[in-house]
């Protein structure tokens, strides 16, 4: 009963928030709505017993990704409304809904038709976080390390792309001395 109430509340909230993201004209509204939607998505993870994922969702998405977007927005004019000229609205909506349903159907048909056996069944009396640690550091150790390297590469790429060249910009001390 409580599960049903929580599920429907969270689904309405998430769909509403993401609807604001997709249809809003203001970049700041869209960003705030996206942050809210991410937090509500973590509610689904707690509902599904995936405690670790719920916490990671809040920390990584709302804490890191949205903060990064907020910092990135300081480079753009985000206060004014975005002007977009959109053509072919009907075609876009029908195509996107059809393709999404088609993708879901392709991905989910095997799940319904074939009796799937769990490859790594959950063990009783072991918490979710402990079990994720057990699997992550045994079966999925190599992808985990590759993800770490990928994050390092992404961090360095982000710094190199956005950095200002040190020798070209005057530092505060040089400006104060009147050298530049």
């Amino acid at each position, binding site marked *: 009963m409580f599960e049903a109430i929580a599920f429907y509340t969270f689904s309405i909230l998430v769909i509403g928030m993401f609807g604001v993201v997709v249809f809003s004209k203001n970049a700041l509204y869209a960003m705030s709505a996206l942050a809210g939607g991410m937090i509500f998505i973590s509610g689904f*993870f707690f509902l*599904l017993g995936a405690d670790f994922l719920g916490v990671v969702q809040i920390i990584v998405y709302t804490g890191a990704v949205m903060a990064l977007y907020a910092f*990135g927005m300081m480079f753009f004019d985000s206060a004014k409304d975005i002007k977009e000229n959109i053509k072919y609205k009907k075609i876009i909506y029908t195509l996107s809904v059809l393709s999404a349903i088609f993708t879901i159907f392709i991905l989910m048909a095997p799940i319904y038709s074939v009796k799937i056996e769990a490859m790594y069944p*959950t063990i009783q009396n072991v918490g979710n976080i402990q079990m994720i640690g057990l699997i992550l550091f045994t079966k999925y150790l190599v992808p985990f390390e590759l993800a770490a390297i990928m994050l390092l590469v992404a961090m360095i790429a982000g710094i190199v792309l956005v950095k200002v060249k040190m020798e070209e910009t005057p530092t505060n001390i040089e400006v104060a001395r009147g050298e530049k």
Partner: protein
Amino acid sequence: MITLTHYLVLSGILFSLGIVGVLRRKNLLMLFFSTEILLNAVNVGFAAVSKYYGDLSGQIFSFFIISIAASEVAVGLGLLVLWYKRSGTIDLDSLQMMKG
């Protein structure tokens, strides 16, 4: 009683919203937001399948998807800032350089 189908339908609705955003939006920042919605929709589906089949692989995949999303944002925003410095706009149509 909430079944797997409920979660998959929700995941499908969120995915459609994300695709509508990707196709409809002309602003590159909004395009990034829409891709985040797509990734989140898939995450919910994975977690639901993982719960109803008693298998943890779905949760592990969601975890990797989250890490991919984080690195995508870092590189993507860097490129976006660079493009804005060069061209002064983040409109998608400004990327059309080859007139065909």
